[in-house]
């Protein structure tokens, strides 16, 4: 009893009371600097000290990438009908979907639509990391395929921004099938001669890397992004070896010949626009 009372007693503090409104400051996970949030936001969510690219949600990504107000979403209401009836630990997949919808403000882990990048019309597909870790389920697969179909129909380039933990476990083999589905549709897109640019951001792993994210005509990565097939933890657990520094980063992938370029977030727009200009027929 005595111990408990003692532990509640903090003692007099001589320091001034910390009264800080929440969400004004943040710590950069890479360089550990304390940063003023609005400065970071002005800097396109990149750490001004060490160039660490923070994860950003789909809406912000579209704001940075597309011309102001040019994004017209399609199929925004598409939701999954839970093919397996998945249940885990007293919750269900449907409940999890609802919770994540509230958290992220989108109905699924991908937004697609037509947009303009520096005045060039494109079909844009952007993944939302806050929705079940951006995992690919039936809706994400269907949306990407719809985006490809639209790009084929309107003869526009397709720009996909990947940000995902992989295939969605909650939909079982249905989500595994999305890998085959997206790859098949992209094969057709390739045959008709469409331009497909893929931007790989932190993190792109698992089934998404092993399907549409790696099939672009041009692969652009953001600096320091985690890109790989198996997650680093899985690899470390399986082979029981300490992983080398910088393993599975964008720079690592570039070095091993799997990326075309690494582009800073602030240059992404102009770089994509330039690529589109080059590839015009």
């Amino acid at each position, binding site marked *: 009893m005595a111990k408990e009372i003692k532990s509640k007693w903090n003692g007099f503090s001589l320091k001034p009371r910390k009264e800080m409104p929440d969400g004004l400051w943040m710590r950069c996970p890479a360089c550990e600097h304390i940063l003023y949030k609005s400065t970071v936001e002005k800097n396109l969510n990149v750490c001004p000290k060490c160039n660490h690219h923070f994860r950003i949600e789909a809406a912000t990504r579209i704001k940075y990438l597309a011309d102001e107000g040019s994004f017209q979403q399609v199929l925004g209401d598409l939701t999954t*009908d839970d*093919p*397996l009836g*998945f*249940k*885990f*630990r007293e919750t269900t997949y449907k409940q999890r979907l609802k919770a994540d919808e509230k958290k992220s403000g989108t109905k699924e882990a991908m937004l697609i639509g037509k947009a303009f990048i520096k005045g060039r019309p494109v079909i844009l597909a952007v993944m939302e990391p806050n929705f079940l870790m951006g995992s690919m*389920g*039936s809706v994400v*697969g*269907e949306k990407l*395929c719809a985006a490809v179909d639209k790009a084929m129909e309107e003869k526009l380039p397709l720009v996909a921004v990947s940000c995902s933990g992989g*295939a*969605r*476990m909650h*939909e*079982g*083999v*249905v*989500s*595994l*099938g*999305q*890998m*085959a*589905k997206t*790859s*098949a*549709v*992209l*094969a*057709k897109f*390739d*045959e008709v001669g469409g331009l497909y640019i893929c931007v790989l951001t932190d993190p792109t792993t*698992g*089934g998404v*890397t*092993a*399907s*549409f*994210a*790696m*099939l672009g005509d041009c692969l652009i990565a953001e600096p320091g992004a985690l890109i*790989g*097939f*198996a997650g680093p933890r*899985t*690899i470390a657990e*399986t*082979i029981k*070896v300490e*992983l*080398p520094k910088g*393993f*599975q980063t964008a720079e690592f992938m570039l070095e*091993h*010949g*799997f990326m075309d370029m690494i582009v800073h977030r602030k240059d992404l727009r102009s770089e994509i626009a330039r690529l589109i200009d080059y590839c015009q027929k």
Partner: protein
Amino acid sequence: MAKRDIPIAKMPGNNNNFSGGAHLEFEDKVADLDRQMNELRRLSSIKGIDYSAEIRQLRRQQVAELKRIYSNLTAWQTVQVARHPQRPLLSDYLDLMVKDFRELHGDRCFGDDRAIVTGFGHIGRERVLVVGQNKGKNTKQKIACNFGCPNPEGYRKALAKMKFAEKFGIPIVTLIDTPGAHPGIGAEERGQAQAIAVNLNQMSRLRVPIICIVIGEGGSGGALGIGVGDRLAILEFAYYSVISPEGCAAILWRDGSQAPKAAEALKLTSKDLYKLELVDAVIPEPLGGAHRNVHDTIYNVEKYIVKTLRDLKRTKIDNLLDNRYSKLRSIGASPTEKLRRKTQAAKERVKAALEAMPTKPKRVPAKV
């Protein structure tokens, strides 16, 4: 199908008995009956008493017990059967099903992955390219095959040989049996994800019939890497999943020992997959699983391949590709959407057929 010339007893890997080597944990009673039968056999050989009637009785009990167990296996038990150490592996299929098999090695880039075996051979009367994942029978083979976990060079080899087969119009049969693609430093350096992605991309457009069969474990992207085709079949007690049950349990339940629950939730058995229309066919296994009767299992697989190849070869290659595309495109679509697509495709086909039909001249009624 013509009967083989070799007597069955002399064929390799014949263990046509119900004991099936190692017993799984849910087969206690079967194991017990086996022990009793062996004891009786031993006694009769020592004392010279005829126990054959008793043995027959026990055997009948055992068959009934096996029927009871295997008619309603749980998902986790299915996973255990699929991983059974005596389950027929790719090497058995190559020995028993593929005639004059000629293996082709190497991906022409980096090396030769032993976890994926490719080569030409005959199944029935058809010449085919066999692409399969091998796990290895003993420790030495297992290490050479990396326990059935392919590296990127394996997938690249598979694709290179499939392109070779495409050039000469040779149908492709892939036999899937892997816990998953290898997660390792070297595999990542050489682009595991890219290799699989390119395989998915290219296999959807290969201009030859492709039959994919899951013969044991169908583990995630590693299985899908050679698993895109016109038909996907699965053996009755094999499994096919987006993630291993252990992996799923570790992530969603935060406890790897909850794998049985995860297996149940993932709907990874052949029955569930067929119900969800994710596989085209379920190939039956003999009573008590493939490991109890290797020959019947492989015979069933052979029968399926021969029959399906005959069907697929009848279809024009452009139609085959269209069908493959629409099949892949409709994965995960809701039932109504699927139906709409099917009817639309059928309507278009009918329309095209009608247009192609020569128009009959109008009948003029005879003048009276």
